[in-house]
């Protein structure tokens, strides 16, 4: 099925154009890494705040409100640039096990972020709760998971180039 998809994708005009443009891959990868920088720093700063490793001059809710948009819009840019990178090398990527693992990890990371967002935004706003150094245990577990997932996804992304 993936083979058929790769074959069809490879025959589209966009894919042919990308495959024959020499600078397409390095430039798309650059955009991909810049978007990753925004996502990674925002996700980590929120996760570390929830885990109690960051200054808690700002409440959990305020930190979540501040950083979550900077997690979601770079993710959109990552999916877009990533999609174009797939179109530039459909056969290589859709048949690559590390790429498929990365997509599975990404799906988990999106679900984890959605649940984390839901829990973080309804953290009690009372004076004491707002400035607590750490979040509730479930939120802390999700934060640790999110931290590790983004690292694993970035690792997988770089390793795609090294496996067949």
């Amino acid at each position, binding site marked *: 099925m993936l083979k058929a998809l790769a074959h069809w994708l490879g025959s589209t005009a966009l894919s042919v154009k990308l495959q024959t443009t020499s600078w397409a891959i*390095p430039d798309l990868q650059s955009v991909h890494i810049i978007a990753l920088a925004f996502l990674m720093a925002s996700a980590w700063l929120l996760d570390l705040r929830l885990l109690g490793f*960051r200054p808690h001059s700002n409440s959990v809710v305020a930190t979540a409100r501040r950083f979550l948009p900077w997690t979601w819009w770079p993710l959109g840019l990552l999916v877009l640039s990533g999609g174009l990178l797939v179109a530039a090398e459909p056969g290589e990527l859709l048949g690559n096990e590390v790429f498929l693992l990365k997509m599975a990890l990404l799906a988990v990371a999106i679900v984890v972020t959605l649940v984390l967002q839901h829990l973080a935004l309804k953290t009690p706003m009372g004076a004491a709760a707002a400035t607590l150094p750490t979040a509730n245990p479930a939120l802390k577990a999700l934060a640790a998971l999110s931290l590790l997932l983004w690292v694993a996804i970035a690792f997988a992304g770089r390793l795609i180039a090294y496996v067949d």
Partner: protein
Amino acid sequence: MFMEFCRWLEHTSLGVSIAQSAWLFPLIESVHVIALALVVGSIAIVDLRLLGLASKDRLVSQLSEELLPFTWSAFGVAAVSGFLLFMSNAVGYIENYLFRTKLLLLVLAAANMGVFHFLTYRTVSQWDREVAALPTGAKVAGGLSLLIWLSIIVVGRWIGFI
């Protein structure tokens, strides 16, 4: 003399191991990308505040003081991993004009940070809170920093393709 040093570096047992191992280079490269992402992402937060575009409700001084340990830790990891990658093929990298461009951009980023810290930032108490009070010097420093760091990512990625 510097070339001698590079030649020596890539012939050290560590340099040779990284060059010959099938998995060491990709592993270190992944660490480098993650660390650099955290460096650039956290610097961008301060830059966008200096430009008056984000974190507008935060004090410039508090924002930068809270982020600095994070940025510097990530920078340490990026520098060490970058140096290890460099060791695997020191002469080749020095001869690559994009690698030299990346080093020059790092120097420019440091110079920009130095000018901002030692000149503009001295009056931070006057423009710490209000976005409207941001001096031109702060906006220029923020804009330049963002531009330089994003260029470092682009040039860094292109090094692997030349």
